[in-house]
């Protein structure tokens, strides 16, 4: 292999892509519900909108559309973090999330674009099971995973430009440039032929952690980037044992039962249980009381049906049931998050303030009634 090929196709500890995918998807779900949904009342006001891309300009997203897309994206993302991700589902999460921010300039948060880039990388990640990533032995399994290296390079490019623009304006640029170099180096730390890197890489984690603790940033970007830094820079044995501990319940559940037990006679039961679950799970969203959320959750169930496809009827195993359970988990998490946070209150209060400003008293009264109902 040529040196460049060795860089992209060298070995990576499988624990890293496994944990990275789940960490970002789970955080993204809560980020959409807690930080993006409260902004939903801005959408569709006065039938005016400017999208990020010109081909969207004729489309005016309503509040219900925006919240529905976010509910869909969040529930699907969390369900994929909870149980074996499926490539089609990751494509749908990437599409839903990108549609969510790109449909309007009202969402101009810089890291939402970064998350889209990450989701594109995730589409090509291997869809690893816990058993594949964390074998029973203490040796960390490794494999060639170019999309993981691409993920690290994508992060490095972001830091490179942060440093470059800072340098162009005469500001200090060494910290973001150190982050850029750290990510380029850390992507190679699991290679047997580079033992020295294993010693250096964990120390390099200090650069991104310091940058995100001290530089001003918007929203949850520091949480994403510090979490990502832990997964990328942590020494291989540590990340392997963290992953083994986190996945212990899931692995023991799967390893405890043979994949092949209970075959044809149980297929019908599994099929009907899964179908009932797919119908019932979105009903949880009826208690959320925000426009578009019911539709978003129903679409997630339909997407899950599409993702499971033939598996639903032709796989005489428990896999479809776990998948439906993960959908249930996503819908329940949405309901609990929205009802225990100020998401609904913030949404209705913002709507009331804006309607007041525009002199739309009927809408303001409707929004204010709901805001009063959900006031913390």
């Amino acid at each position, binding site marked *: 292999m040529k040196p460049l090929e060795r860089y992209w196709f060298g070995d990576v500890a*499988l624990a890293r892509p496994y944990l990275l995918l789940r960490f970002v998807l789970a955080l993204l779900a809560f980020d959409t519900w807690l930080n993006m949904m409260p902004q939903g009342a*801005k959408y569709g006001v006065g039938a005016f909108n*400017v999208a990020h891309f010109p081909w969207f300009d004729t489309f005016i997203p309503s509040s219900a559309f925006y919240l529905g897309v976010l509910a869909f994206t969040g529930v699907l993302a969390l369900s994929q973090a909870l149980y074996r991700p499926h490539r089609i589902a990751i494509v749908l999460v990437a599409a839903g999330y990108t549609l969510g921010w790109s449909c309007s300039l009202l969402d101009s948060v810089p890291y939402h674009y970064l998350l889209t880039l990450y989701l594109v990388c995730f589409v090509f990640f291997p869809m690893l099971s816990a058993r594949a990533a964390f074998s029973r032995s203490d040796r960390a399994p490794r494999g060639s995973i170019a999309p993981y290296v691409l993920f690290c390079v*994508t992060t490095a490019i972001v830091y490179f430009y942060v440093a470059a*623009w800072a340098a162009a304006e005469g500001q200090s640029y060494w910290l973001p440039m150190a982050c850029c170099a750290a990510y380029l180096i850390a992507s190679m730390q699991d290679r047997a032929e580079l033992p020295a890197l294993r010693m250096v890489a964990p120390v390099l984690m200090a650069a991104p952690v310091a940058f995100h603790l001290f530089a001003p940033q918007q929203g949850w970007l520091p949480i994403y980037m510090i979490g990502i830094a832990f997964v990328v820079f942590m020494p291989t044995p540590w990340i392997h044992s963290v992953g083994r501990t986190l996945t212990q319940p899931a692995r023991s559940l799967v390893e405890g039962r043979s994949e092949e037990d209970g075959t044809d006679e149980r297929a019908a039961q599994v099929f009907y249980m899964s179908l009932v679950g797919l119908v019932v799970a979105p009903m949880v969203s009826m208690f959320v009381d925000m426009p578009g959320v019911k539709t978003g959750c129903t679409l997630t169930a339909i997407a899950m049906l599409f993702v499971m496809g033939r598996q639903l009827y032709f796989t005489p195993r428990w896999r479809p049931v776990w998948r439906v359970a993960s959908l249930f988990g996503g819908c329940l998490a949405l309901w609990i998050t929205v009802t225990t946070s100020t998401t609904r209150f913030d949404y209705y209060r913002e709507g009331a303030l804006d309607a007041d400003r525009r002199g739309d008293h009927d809408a303001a009264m409707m929004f204010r009634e709901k805001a009063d109902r959900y006031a913390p």
Partner: protein
Amino acid sequence: MASSETEPPPAHPSPKARRRTGALIAAFVGLQFLIPLTYLTREDTGDERFTWRSLNAPTAPSCETSASLERFDGQREAISLQKLIHQDWVDYVGQGRRAVVDAFLRKQCEADGVLQVELVNRCDDERGTREYNLRCGGERAHETVRTATR
């Protein structure tokens, strides 16, 4: 190509797969390098999207904005932006974001009998006073800048 189902640990790719993946990677990385550079060619310097110039929200202060429209019969009417669009859009217009200003002026032209629409941003800083004038039917407003004298 990996299947969409759960997979065993990935094997080392064949030379053909490496070439194919390499081309995709080159395109993706190339785009990521080029997109931030488009800032250098942007007419609207307030538009920092996709450039990584800041990891924070843009904080350009909004200017005092007034808008008016002229009808075919010569009558002029003031437009209250706050009553028509969300405050976030009013802030964008006040910051002089061209895409939003143009879209707002085009939107006002959709009303019956409107000949032209005018919007004025008065800033206390180096941006000075900017007038945007759109003759209905046109796509892009004509911009006039009067820099503040200090």
